[in-house]
């Protein structure tokens, strides 16, 4: 893979709209908001939900149950500002406590986090978990509409007589948000890109075609690029950009079929039909109060936590390794299916970048281009991915060995997933022995400390193979902080090692899946061209096209 960093390639992607500076300021402020003791006001899920709701324009669907919550609050005399000046982070519990302390008669509760409320003869449930998960959106509504206007809506909610009244107010608030967001979150470029991709698929498979993930394959991506890149105004001149957008298209298909993002076509959804749909949503949100299927943090966001800039006491991946891993992780679950595209990207993407840079400096490198890519480039790229995988694993093992040397109790947690099945059983047996020797109740932390001490003392007997592997890794990866115990801030060192091991352990499998048993690159099959042959064919294709693109401007 090239030395040119992925970030540079990414920045070359032209964007001419998107969220305004003001919106970003507001969202950043909301995300950074803390309560009195310094804890974040909003959970990570609430923050992610805000971005999803804005991206999907599905705020109307959330504002509706929020209005029900505010209606209960207003009718019980809670001042509006109470919800924005809470001394605790916003959770279902803290919302419930706020309501409970304000009401003169206890608010009916079906479960801990579901409030029963009524408008005259109509009763409805308010799921506080759902409200808490959208706390960041509520803050954004406050900032966009303003306290004065929101209070006016709140006072109307206080006297709302029925579901229809609440709906009307919810519509009004949604309308205000719509007007703000249409000026502050333009999506013209995204729409234009989407149209280009959609039209290409329609032209390829037919207008009425129902698309699946596998329709977006390596050949479609390169054919698309070939077609559009000669247009000087196209947003897809850059192959990297093409790939990124088609990967997103695949993700969109996958997400649509798993309903990850909820779509809201327009505000008109809150009409008769929309009302019925919202009633169902209301019921569903009430029923899913025990929904503990929280969104897994994307592994990509975890990667940032082990970047050189983030770690203080240790160094795990280098900046280059970080960018390379990030580039590969962007493909997500689609990586193995698009391995050829990945190879094309890491091989020809940097070439295109060099050509662009040269053309900016009014130089030409077309004549020297042939020397940029060797016929073995794809094999080298595969090897580099494998090496990256090995490095990640090795770093995890070296970090675990550091914890062993420091006799840190965190070693036990780090070592367990790295050990094979036999050694894992042996480690558990040690824990069982320690427990069996207890004569009385013991603090859990103290028990963990005892088990850790026992394992550390008997590691050479209980997990000899693992220990040997860890030792070898430590010798191979001599990076900052990996090794002996530091003289100060041991707590930070230990925490970084332990977190780093966990993240590295989660990074390794996706990289492995790219190159391990991947049919696209197993050349033993007769129908599959060798990597070298593919590389040569692609090189001819790409270079020929580069000459068309950049030769004209040379």
């Amino acid at each position, binding site marked *: 893979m090239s030395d040119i960093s992925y970030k540079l390639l990414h920045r070359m992607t032209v964007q001419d709209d998107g969220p305004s500076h003001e919106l970003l300021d507001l969202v950043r402020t909301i995300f950074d908001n803390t309560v009195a003791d310094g804890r974040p006001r909003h959970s990570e899920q609430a923050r992610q939900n805000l971005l999803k709701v804005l991206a999907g324009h599905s705020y109307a669907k959330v504002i509706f149950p929020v209005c029900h919550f505010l209606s209960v609050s207003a009718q019980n005399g809670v001042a509006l500002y109470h919800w924005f000046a809470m001394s605790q982070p916003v959770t279902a519990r803290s919302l419930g406590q706020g309501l409970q302390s304000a009401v003169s008669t206890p608010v009916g509760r079906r479960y801990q986090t579901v409030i029963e409320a009524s408008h005259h003869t109509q009763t409805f449930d308010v799921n506080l978990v759902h409200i808490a998960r959208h706390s960041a959106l509520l803050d954004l509504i406050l900032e966009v509409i303003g306290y*004065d206007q929101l209070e006016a809506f709140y006072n109307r909610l206080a006297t709302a007589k029925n579901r229809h009244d609440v709906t009307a107010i919810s519509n009004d608030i949604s309308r205000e948000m719509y007007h703000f967001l249409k000026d502050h979150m333009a999506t013209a470029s995204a729409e234009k890109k989407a149209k280009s991709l959609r039209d290409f698929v329609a032209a390829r498979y037919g207008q009425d075609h129902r698309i699946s993930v596998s329709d977006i394959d390596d050949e479609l991506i390169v054919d698309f690029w070939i077609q559009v890149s000669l247009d000087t105004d196209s947003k897809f001149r850059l192959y990297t950009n093409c790939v990124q957008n088609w990967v997103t298209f695949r993700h969109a298909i996958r997400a649509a079929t798993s309903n990850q993002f909820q779509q809201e076509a327009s505000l008109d959804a809150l009409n008769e039909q929309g009302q019925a749909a919202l009633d169902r949503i209301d019921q569903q949100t009430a029923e899913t109060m025990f929904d503990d299927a929280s969104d897994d943090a994307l592994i990509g966001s975890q990667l940032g936590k082990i970047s050189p800039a983030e770690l203080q006491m240790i160094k795990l991946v280098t900046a280059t390794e970080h960018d390379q891993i990030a580039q590969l992780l962007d493909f997500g679950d689609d990586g193995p299916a698009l391995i050829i595209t990945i190879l094309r990207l890491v091989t020809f993407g940097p070439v295109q970048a060099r050509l662009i840079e040269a053309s900016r400096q009014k130089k030409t490198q077309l004549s020297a281009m042939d020397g940029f890519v060797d016929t073995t480039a794809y094999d080298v790229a595969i090897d580099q991915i494998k090496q990256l995988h090995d490095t990640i694993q090795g770093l995890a093992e070296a970090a675990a060995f550091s914890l062993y040397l420091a006799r840190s109790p965190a070693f036990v947690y780090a070592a367990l997933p790295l050990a094979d099945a036999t050694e894992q059983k042996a480690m558990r047996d040690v824990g069982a022995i320690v427990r069996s020797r207890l004569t009385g109740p013991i603090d859990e932390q103290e028990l963990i400390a005892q088990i850790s001490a026992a394992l550390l003392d008997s590691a050479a007997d209980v997990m000899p193979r693992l220990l040997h592997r860890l030792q070898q890794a430590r010798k191979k990866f001599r990076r900052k902080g990996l090794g002996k115990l530091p003289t100060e801030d041991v707590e930070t060192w230990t925490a970084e090692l332990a977190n780093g091991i966990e993240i590295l352990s989660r990074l390794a499998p996706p990289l492995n899946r790219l190159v391990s048993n991947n049919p696209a690159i197993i050349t033993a099959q007769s129908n599959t061209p060798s990597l070298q042959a593919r590389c040569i064919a692609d090189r001819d294709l790409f270079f020929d096209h580069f000459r068309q693109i950049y030769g004209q401007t040379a």
Partner: protein
Amino acid sequence: MTHHSDEPTIGLDDAKAHFVTLETYRQLDTSLAAHEPDTMRQLTFADLWAAATAPETHAETIAKIGSNAKQASRFAALLRSMAIYTQPAQAAAASAPMDKRIGDQFDLELKASSRHDGAYFLIIRLHKLAETTPQHLYYCHNNNYNFISLSSVHNGVSQVMVGEDNPVIDAFNDPAAEFFIK
């Protein structure tokens, strides 16, 4: 194309719509990560709340609020909401300086010290005592917000000594000024 018969499918327009959502999400996320906040960032509710609850340490914020009509309106709404007592603008425009401002919830009176050294006494008479101890008198005059810390209330009366340069004096004499106590 390789299309497995058991793979889920969707319509092209649905896929397009979801793409826009994902792309927009990506744009938001990326922009947010790269975003450099303005050194002069706009005021948010947290700023208004801080100014309303601890005005002594947020005098600069209060001045900023006054210079922005939108924020001033929001701040006024928050003060009214938090206020234990309010006194809206007086109805009649008086040509002579007023010595008493009558309100439904409290009256204000301004008396000069007999020492004639520029000291004034602002007397606040509350018509009904609330459970919460009032701590500040806020006032809005010419779109500027100011506050005065209140002394203890005895028999429904609080009194503050101010100098002749204190802006509350001009506010007091302006029927259009609005007063809040919280």
